């Protein structure tokens, strides 16, 4: 699968949320999408997910536009994990995860749903009612729901935001593994070190524009961090990998 955005602009009323942004991603790539609050990350994710048509520009899935594939087909092509996911009715966890099977015709708790629960480490919660979960448990259940789609594209908006350190590491490894198995994975992230360690590529947004795109070393340099976030960062090396800690307001 190949996911491409060409000159995508997203507007809401008079505000421009994403400006003339282009990206091309091959299957097997894990892209970390970074940027300060309000940079347009979620707007870009919704356009990539086909939930919103861009004001101008195009998104292509293996060269085909969303309209060509249709909403049903997109359901099987893209798994989308929204930010602040809620579970509105107290369903058992396994049934929540199995909702990810709906694009394939039925929400039965099948092998794919069980695989997804195992991958996200929520098997033990299978029979629990969704309203008894902690924030971190719910985040992992919702990630399992997205994995259960078994789509060639996985778009996850802040999948690690509510998680404790161990589960952050596990979720990042899980997203990387999903990409290793051939999927295009895009995740909105705020932890620069985790993004640098686990992602194949990073994209840094600011004010709706793509400020930088490339490897962690290319994207997370002082100039980019200062321009995007207005911070000075500490950079260390541990077992050969880069640790980036935002340290102080710039200047």
């Amino acid at each position, binding site marked *: 699968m190949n996911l491409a955005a060409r000159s995508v602009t997203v507007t809401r009323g008079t505000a421009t949320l994403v400006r003339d942004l282009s990206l091309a991603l091959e299957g097997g790539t894990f892209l970390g999408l970074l940027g300060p609050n309000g940079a347009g990350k979620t707007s870009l994710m919704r356009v990539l997910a086909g939930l919103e048509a861009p004001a101008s520009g195009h998104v292509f899935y293996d060269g085909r536009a969303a309209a060509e594939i249709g909403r049903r087909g997109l*359901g099987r092509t893209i798994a989308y994990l*929204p930010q602040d*996911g809620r579970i509105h*009715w107290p369903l*058992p966890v396994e*049934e929540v995860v199995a*909702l990810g099977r*709906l694009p394939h015709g039925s929400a039965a708790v099948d092998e794919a749903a069980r695989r997804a629960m195992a991958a996200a480490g929520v098997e033990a919660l299978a029979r629990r009612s969704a*309203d008894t979960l902690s924030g971190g448990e719910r985040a992992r259940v919702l990630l399992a*729901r997205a994995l259960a789609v078994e789509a060639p594209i996985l778009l996850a908006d802040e999948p690690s935001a509510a998680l404790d350190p161990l589960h952050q590491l596990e979720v990042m490894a899980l997203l990387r593994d999903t990409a290793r198995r051939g999927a295009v994975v895009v995740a909105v992230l705020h932890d620069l070190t985790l993004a640098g360690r686990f992602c194949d590529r990073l994209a840094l947004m600011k004010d709706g524009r793509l400020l930088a795109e490339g490897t962690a070393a290319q994207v997370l340099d002082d100039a980019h961090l200062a321009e995007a976030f207005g911070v000075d960062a500490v950079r260390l090396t541990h077992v050969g990998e880069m640790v980036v800690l935002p340290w102080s307001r710039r200047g």
Partner: protein
Amino acid sequence: MPSRVVLGLGLVVLVLFCASVAVGYAPLDLGAAFGDLLAGRQSLSALVLSELRLPRAILGGAVGFSLGITGAALQGLMRNPLADPGVVGVSGAAALGAVIAFYFGFSASFALALPLGGLMGAAAATAVLLALAARGAGTVMLILAGVALSSLAGALTALALNLAPSPYAALELVFWLMGSLADRSLVHVALALPFMAVGWVLVLATGPALDALTLGEDAAESLGFPLRRVRLLVIGGTAAAVGASVAVAGAIGFVGLVVPHLVRPLVGHRPGRLLAASGLAGAALTLGADIVVRLVPTRPELQLGVVTALIGAPFFLFLLARLRGVES
């Protein structure tokens, strides 16, 4: 398991339907009545059966099913357990249509003017809602439009009462508005049932989409359910089923609000599975309340809408006190 729930509720509805046919003010030999009816003999008992008992029981079941299934669908669409078929404004508009038919004297010259007026009122409100939905209005926008339509219809209904030519006319209007299944004929059934059936089919088609909406609107859409279409189906289906219900039976409150809550634990809280089960439970509750209406020896007869609200409102308070997990 859920199919067992549906079967069980279906059995309850069947029993209550038979009880509803068996209960009435005049003693009736049901066996003879059915025999006469099937043989085409115009006996008094056959007439009582075909003109009074059967229409009343059929409408009780159909109106209750409409209220139950649409209440469940709206609560699923809005992911809000306080939604009720009345919120889309079609009930108020149907009531207004009937009141207009009554007020201008059409109903005096032509008995079916009331339900026809109700259907026209419902159709007008539905047209407004569907036009908004087709322009891409969100769920909250549609519900607010429904509330506005409801208020307008309520105000115009109050105006009609205010200007009623005589206190008797006003009283008759008020009684009609309370909701009842008394003295309805098979013509009423023929008038309302097709619209209700269309509504049920539209709403039932949204089952998987309502399940997906458990995860919110973006996630549901990403699972392949275009929300615009889901809204059209739920709002259109509700308008057809509830509009027709109000047109023939007046406003029967609380069934659509309370029944989904009662049934939800039985179907594991799945919004899609809830639809049919809630419809059947609505039918059972309405048939049961209509039996109570006829067994309680008051004159004038208690209005069905009064009884459902009397049972429903306190029960709803009780449910709210024990409800968990909806505020998170």
